[in-house]
């Protein structure tokens, strides 16, 4: 495993950190209270070019390597999980088009997505379909050179404002992926409010009633919408979430180190109390462990190693659990203050819970990770048998 950053990556991280600290952090609690991500903020973010982080330069993007992109997710996740989710879902659309889009789709949409002129969102989850995602009930019917999309989507991050949706629907009884523009007749979105976390991620319910889209809007091929198109998008989403969770842990740790140094109880700063130190130690240790997993997943991505899917799942699973633990302890350390809107740790706590659910719940990650464990066992046994056979032959 290699975990050092290049000078260029360090410079990029400093730039991300500076933007996040100066432009987003001071207002993140207000956005959360308002349940809005102001259009001006999205435009400011788009102006950085980072919405096109994963888009190659020839399509107008930044062409970031996986580690640099991870650092961006970490820094944005440190200050606002909601803004991170814009980076996540927008990037999921970019990634899916980059990998499985036609040359025309890439030429038309990637420059617009990279500049932020078009905001993308990912439409997989439905009111009755969550983890069993390949069983979506929305349908697409091919007719007269078009597809007619009908169905409903729910919990769609930035669904209130996105212009372009990657919609997964059953076509000929098989999951397939389609691009649907907001201005398509029959398309509507309804804001979802009162969420536990990700309150300024502008979640929406999508309604699609006979939305007629050109047949050129099919992404990939019929039947490959879940396994390949959504699979590519979700892998990207999990990678964003893993790094974003790392940022959330760092935010909790930073807040707690500062708070416990100033706050006095029983005549001494909280930092002197060993039960406080225990929680701080766990945050530091989990942060380091999560960072190792995120870097490892990033290295796998940059190498295009097939193991990247597993390593990303593992990183997302661990980092989101660690984020939840860190946020819970952060609130505990802050006591009543931690429960008030005066301190960001309460927002971190609410957002951390969402991290354990989005882009494949942690239970889905556990299934994936455990199955892989058994595959490794099979491989080890085969190698053992082969080794014994070779020895016997010698």
């Amino acid at each position: 495993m290699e975990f050092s950053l290049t000078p260029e990556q360090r410079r990029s991280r400093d730039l991300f950190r500076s933007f996040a600290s100066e432009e987003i952090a001071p207002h993140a609690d207000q956005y959360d209270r308002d349940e809005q991500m102001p259009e001006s903020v999205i435009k400011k973010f788009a102006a950085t070019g980072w919405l096109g982080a994963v888009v190659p330069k020839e399509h107008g993007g930044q062409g970031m390597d996986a580690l640099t992109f991870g650092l961006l997710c970490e820094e944005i996740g440190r200050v606002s999980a909601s803004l991170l989710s814009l980076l996540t879902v927008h990037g999921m659309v970019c990634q899916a088009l980059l990998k499985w889009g036609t040359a025309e789709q890439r030429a038309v949409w990637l420059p617009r997505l990279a500049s932020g002129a078009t905001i993308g969102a990912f439409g997989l989850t439905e009111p009755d379909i969550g983890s069993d995602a390949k069983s979506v009930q929305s349908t697409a019917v091919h007719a007269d050179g078009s597809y007619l999309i009908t169905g409903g989507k729910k919990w769609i991050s930035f669904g209130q404002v996105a212009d372009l949706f990657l919609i997964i629907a059953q076509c000929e009884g098989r999951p397939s992926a389609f691009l649907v523009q907001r201005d398509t007749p029959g398309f509507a979105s309804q804001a979802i409010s009162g969420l536990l976390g990700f309150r300024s991620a502008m979640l929406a319910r999508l309604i699609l009633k006979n939305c007629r889209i050109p047949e050129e809007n099919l992404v990939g091929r019929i039947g490959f919408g879940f396994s390949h198109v959504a699979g590519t998008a979700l892998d990207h989403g999990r990678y964003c979430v893993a790094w974003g969770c790392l940022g959330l842990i760092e935010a909790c740790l930073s807040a707690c180190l500062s708070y416990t140094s100033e706050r006095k109880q029983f005549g001494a700063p909280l930092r002197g109390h060993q039960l406080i130190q225990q929680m701080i130690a766990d945050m530091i240790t989990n942060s380091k462990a999560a960072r190792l997993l995120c870097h490892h997943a990033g290295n796998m991505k940059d190498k295009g190693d097939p193991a990247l899917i597993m390593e990303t799942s593992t990183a997302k699973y661990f980092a989101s659990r660690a984020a939840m633990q860190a946020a819970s302890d952060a609130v505990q350390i802050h006591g009543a203050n931690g429960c008030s809107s005066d301190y960001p740790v309460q927002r971190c706590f609410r957002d951390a819970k969402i991290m354990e659910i989005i882009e494949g719940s942690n239970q889905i990650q556990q299934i994936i990770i455990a199955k892989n464990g058994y595959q490794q066992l099979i491989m080890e046994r085969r190698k053992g048998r082969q080794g014994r056979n070779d020895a016997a032959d010698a």
Partner: protein
Amino acid sequence: MNAEAIRETVTSFLAQFINVDVDDDEDLFASGLVNSLFAMQLVLFVEKEFAVKVENEDLDYDNFRTMNAIVGFIQRKTA
């Protein structure tokens, strides 16, 4: 790379996912031996191992359904 060398490399990869011997023409997906996660891992494997790009127009289960199909697909992509 000839067909046998490709087959050997693919067999080694498949062995990570399938704990039974499969016929060269057995449908990996219809038999339930593999899942959707495997499908993406197979794409990544083919791209990395054989230095080819699996693209939109390659998305056809006839390219991935069986051992023979995978070997044939790789041969065509590397030709």
